[in-house]
């Protein structure tokens, strides 16, 4: 594939390299105007682990199956202790059985990145169907090969213990961080996936509108949204987090109607869990990219 993305190593592009380094991370980024296609990138085609961002293609395939009548998004399931996957939010954090509609599971999966909701939906939708959808849209570097449970178990298997994972040598051998073995994508393909949702091309118009609503309800303000701290700029997206990996893909909508899909992946030099600068640089870099596209 010919890379026509504007190079940022030249004299005029934004200096993403320096920005990422100052935040203590290595970063990869791609941003595109959803309607004009004008773009800017920094390592845009690097295969990278997607962590929880795999929930976005799962959401898309869920909608396509609902559109096709293969599943009823309002049908209810009961999520029991056996279905519960470790995780800090949503049903993963609850103690008792939950009866809930499939589409509300999808909402929890996106809004608070609930792992249990994601795995129940993945069980319904099927991992092969998700990958077939990705292939259908030509997203050849994007792959879903693991459930949230499998991802968690791989880290336990790789280190011999549970969370937290702070030892740099242990982190270095996590298969969850190896794009060849874990769920993976590239900044460019995550942006293309979001572009399909925002242009009503990923599923039916109604389903795409609903996906945009749900992605806009994601609660985390510290990454992509932090770069656009304005009442009149809308930010929608999905984060992904693993030891040293922080990322978010999403869409930024400006008051003049122009909209930009952005994907930022970072790997921090340090294995410390709390790194506000590493979170914030996702927003700062995205802002720099969008600002560049608006000039």
């Amino acid at each position: 594939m010919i890379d026509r993305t504007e190079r940022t190593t030249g004299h005029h592009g934004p200096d993403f390299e320096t920005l990422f380094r100052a935040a203590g991370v290595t970063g990869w980024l791609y941003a595109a105007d959803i309607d004009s296609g004008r773009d800017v990138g920094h390592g845009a085609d690097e295969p990278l682990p997607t962590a929880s961002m795999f929930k976005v293609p799962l959401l898309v395939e869920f909608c396509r199956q609902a559109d096709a009548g293969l599943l009823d998004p309002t049908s209810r399931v009961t999520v029991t202790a056996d279905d519960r996957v470790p995780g800090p939010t949503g049903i993963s954090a609850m103690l008792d059985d939950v009866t809930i509609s499939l589409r509300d599971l999808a909402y929890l999966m996106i809004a608070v990145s609930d792992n249990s909701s994601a795995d129940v939906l993945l069980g319904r939708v099927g991992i092969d169907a998700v990958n077939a959808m990705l292939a259908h849209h030509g997203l050849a570097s994007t792959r879903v090969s693991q459930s949230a449970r499998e991802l968690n178990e791989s880290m336990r298997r790789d280190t011999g213990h549970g969370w937290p994972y702070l030892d740099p040598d242990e982190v270095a051998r996590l298969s969850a961080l190896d794009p060849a073995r874990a769920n993976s994508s590239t900044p460019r393909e995550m942006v293309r996936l979001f572009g399909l949702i925002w242009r009503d091309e990923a599923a039916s118009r109604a389903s795409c509108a609903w996906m945009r609503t749900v992605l806009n309800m994601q609660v985390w303000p510290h990454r992509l949204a932090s770069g656009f701290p304005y009442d009149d700029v809308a930010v929608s997206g999905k984060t992904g987090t693993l030891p040293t990996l922080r990322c978010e893909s999403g869409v930024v909508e400006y008051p003049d109607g122009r909209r930009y899909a952005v994907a930022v992946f970072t790997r921090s030099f340090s294995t410390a869990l709390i790194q506000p600068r590493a979170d914030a640089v996702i927003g700062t870099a995205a802002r720099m990219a969008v600002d560049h596209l608006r000039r």
Partner: protein
Amino acid sequence: MDLVRHLRYFIAVAEELHFGNAAIRLGMAQPPLSQRIKRLEEELGTRLFDRSARQVRLTESGRLLLAEAREIVARVDRLHELARHGEDTVLKVGVPPDLAAAVIAALVAGFRETNPEVRLAPAEIWTADQVTALAEGAIDVGLVRHPVSAPGLQFGEILVQLQGVLLAAGDPLAGVGEVHLADLAGRELLMPPREGEPGMHAEMLSECRRHGYVPPQVHQGAGLGLVLAGAAVAFGPKAELPGLAWRPLLGSPITCRVSTAWRVATAPMNELVGDFSAVAVRTLKESAGMTDEGAVPARRISRRPGMLA
């Protein structure tokens, strides 16, 4: 014969009813005055005065013709007055002192093109003072900033100028493509004087607060020295000035709305005021980047989770 001049003699005699007194009033001798009245009577084919008695009296037809004669003479006088006046008709115009010099020049040039016989006399006056000057007749037409409330004034088409922000070239924000009002936090703001532009002042500051910018201090003035010194920022149309950077404001929240204004009872100048209004609309669109009022999009507030959490 010079009918109008003869009518003037007739009016003088009719008012004096005495040839001697009328001759004195007209600065001439009595015999030629009598001669000329006689000639006028021949010309009109009727006797104007009854000279039979010792007293001079208007005849019936003299009385009838007097009113017409006065009307004719008055109209001729008015004709001459208008002709004299037209040579140096001046339209007094008020413009905001911070209006770009190039725009004022374009206004003058544009008006000269449509009304070459009228001289445009622009005076730099803030909106509030223009309102007073219009009421007193000190100016014929103004270029005012809205909102402005003044009974007795009429306004031309309102045009909108999107404002960006002027920063010192060394300001970190000068490096980005566009600036959100909230990004200006902590910076002092330079605005035109509040007494001069009360409406615009209130509206702009309210818009700033709404968008997350509450300037710690608002300076008043028209010069950009404070901005150049890095002590304040200012709003304004796109400008390239040495030592300053201009950046658009994200979402175009700050606008400047202007229109022409004139007194409702400006009857004699009505046509000129209309001409000036038309020239102003065209010029402001062409050389000041102004647009029709409806062209500014409404603000849409994004809904982010956590707002009520």
